[in-house]
């Protein structure tokens, strides 16, 4: 589904990522983790085709649906207006959505249980609600690869659970391939089959979650001790940061 070898990606004339290679077969979920500013969004921009890689080979099999980070639109579109934009690819330059496009969008609104949002102004929806509308937009484009830029940022636990469950459902029932970035290793533990840990612009760890996502790798990734915590009762585990409480240097 995704085949990238020796990717070098530049943004605004500055090289951000060098020699990244990754492979993700159909029906898998990849979680992308990395510190702020390391280039997660740049990598995602390259995956969805907004940035052309400077060198290397990037092959994507199948249509891409993209869910950007939480945003506001400058005009008061309704949630339905926003989701309908997902149909653009099927309409051509001068096309406008017709009955069938409305039906497809409404189908996904129904499937995501957000029918009530339809007439509401997109900007007045909460973060979680807007995220669901954007996922409906991506699904309406009838994509096979779903790329999400921090889909759970700014969401409370319940909404995180809802978005993660939805992603899992899409992969299981609809054989979708999913790529998402996150700052929470927990999200990768919960639903990702593969992880990409971006340590810097030129070094990374990529592999199955079971082996690649370890306390050691995460510690290197965040430059902060990260410990694994096991919940025996739930037969689950997570990773937690050991914050340093290093107040000394603020007094300088």
């Amino acid at each position: 589904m995704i085949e990238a070898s020796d990717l070098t990606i530049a943004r605004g004339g500055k090289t951000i990522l060098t020699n990244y290679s990754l492979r993700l077969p159909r029906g898998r979920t990849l979680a992308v983790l990395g510190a702020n500013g390391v280039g997660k969004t740049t990598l995602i921009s390259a995956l969805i085709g907004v940035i052309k890689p400077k060198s290397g080979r990037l092959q994507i099999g199948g249509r891409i649906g993209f869910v950007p980070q939480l945003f506001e639109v400058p005009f008061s579109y309704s949630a339905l207006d926003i989701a309908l934009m997902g149909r653009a690819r099927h309409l051509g330059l001068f096309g406008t959505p017709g009955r069938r496009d409305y039906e497809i969008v409404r189908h996904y609104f129904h499937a995501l249980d957000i029918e009530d949002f339809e007439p509401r102004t997109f900007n007045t929806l909460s973060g979680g609600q807007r995220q669901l509308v954007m996922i409906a937009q991506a699904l309406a484009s009838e994509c096979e690869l779903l790329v999400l830029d921090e889909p759970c940022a700014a969401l409370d636990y319940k909404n995180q659970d809802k978005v993660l469950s939805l992603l899992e459902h899409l992969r299981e029932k609809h054989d979708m391939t999913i790529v998402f970035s996150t700052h929470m290793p927990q999200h990768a533990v919960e639903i990702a089959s593969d992880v990409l840990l971006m340590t810097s612009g030129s070094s990374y760890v990529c592999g199955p979650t079971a082996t690649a996502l370890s306390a050691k790798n995460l510690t290197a990734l965040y430059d902060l001790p990260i410990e694994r915590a096991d919940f025996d009762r739930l037969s689950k585990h997570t990773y937690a940061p050991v914050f340093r409480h290093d107040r000394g240097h603020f007094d300088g």
Partner: protein
Amino acid sequence: MASYSANARPTGWLGRKLPSVSVLPALIGLLLLVVLYSVTIGRYGLSVGDVTYILIDNIHPLVTPYWEPVQEVVVEQVRLPRIMAAVIVGFGLSISGAALQALFRNPLVDPGIIGVTSGAGFGGTLAILLGLQGYSLLTMAFLFGMASVFLVKLLSTVRGRTSMLTLVLAGVVISAFFSAAISIAKLLADPFQKLPAITYWLMGSIASSNYLDVLLLAVAVVPSTVAIYFLRFQINIMSLGEEKAWALGTKVVLVQWIILVASALISAGVVATSGIIGWVGLVIPHVARALVGADHQRLLPVSGVLGAIYLLMVDNLARTVTTAEIPLGIITALIGVPIFAVILRRLHAKGGWSSD
């Protein structure tokens, strides 16, 4: 996943379409009424009936002409071309304003933002300074308007990509340059003959419009607004931002080019025939948005018709309030600025650009 359930509600689809069906025809009806009314007002008092008979007489004589030939001349040669010019100018500026506000994702954008208005203004000024009149003036204004847009586009394109933010800044720079150039031209102009001519021309007027002016306006405005209207759904997508539009599969560069060139054509045509008429393209789309929402499929036609009605009313004021003509640009600014202030406050109160 490609299948969709049968319980989708087609009635909702129709229900959603309904408001646009009712607002637009109402406005078109209103426009026709205002046009008819506008022909009757002026120094030669005519009734709506007289005007209707005079106009219909051209297509099919209903009654034997009972009016004087001079009345026919007033209606058909003086008032009608001027009214048509007002309708086309208002229509074009408002549609281009709505499209540019979406393209730049900024509700405070005016068609002048892309530099075309002051470029065309300088072209016309230069023509007057050189003693050119009529069609030479129109051509000069038009060419300078188009040239300034290409200059703006050139300035803001780096490695084949145009940043919309840089484009706005480049527009400001080019506008400032041509404004300075206009000042120099005024300074050099003969203060008794040419300076007043330049000043009045820049203030904007369609007082002396004839059918050839109307034709030039129509040639610039009609194909451009049609092109913008065809792109109405893509304009929705462009207003989400370039990156999201790319991801949704929009031909971003092509759509940007078509909208910019179409808007430049509209503004250059308007300035060439009617001088600088500000605030219409900025304010009218907001009023239209309050009526039918942000979706450009409904917003563009409603903006256009609303703008036509507005500018026609303003021109009626310009020619009837005082015995001397008031330049159009002054009235559009006098009315536009307070409306703009209200819009600004509403946007501020809402804590962002999320206007309706």
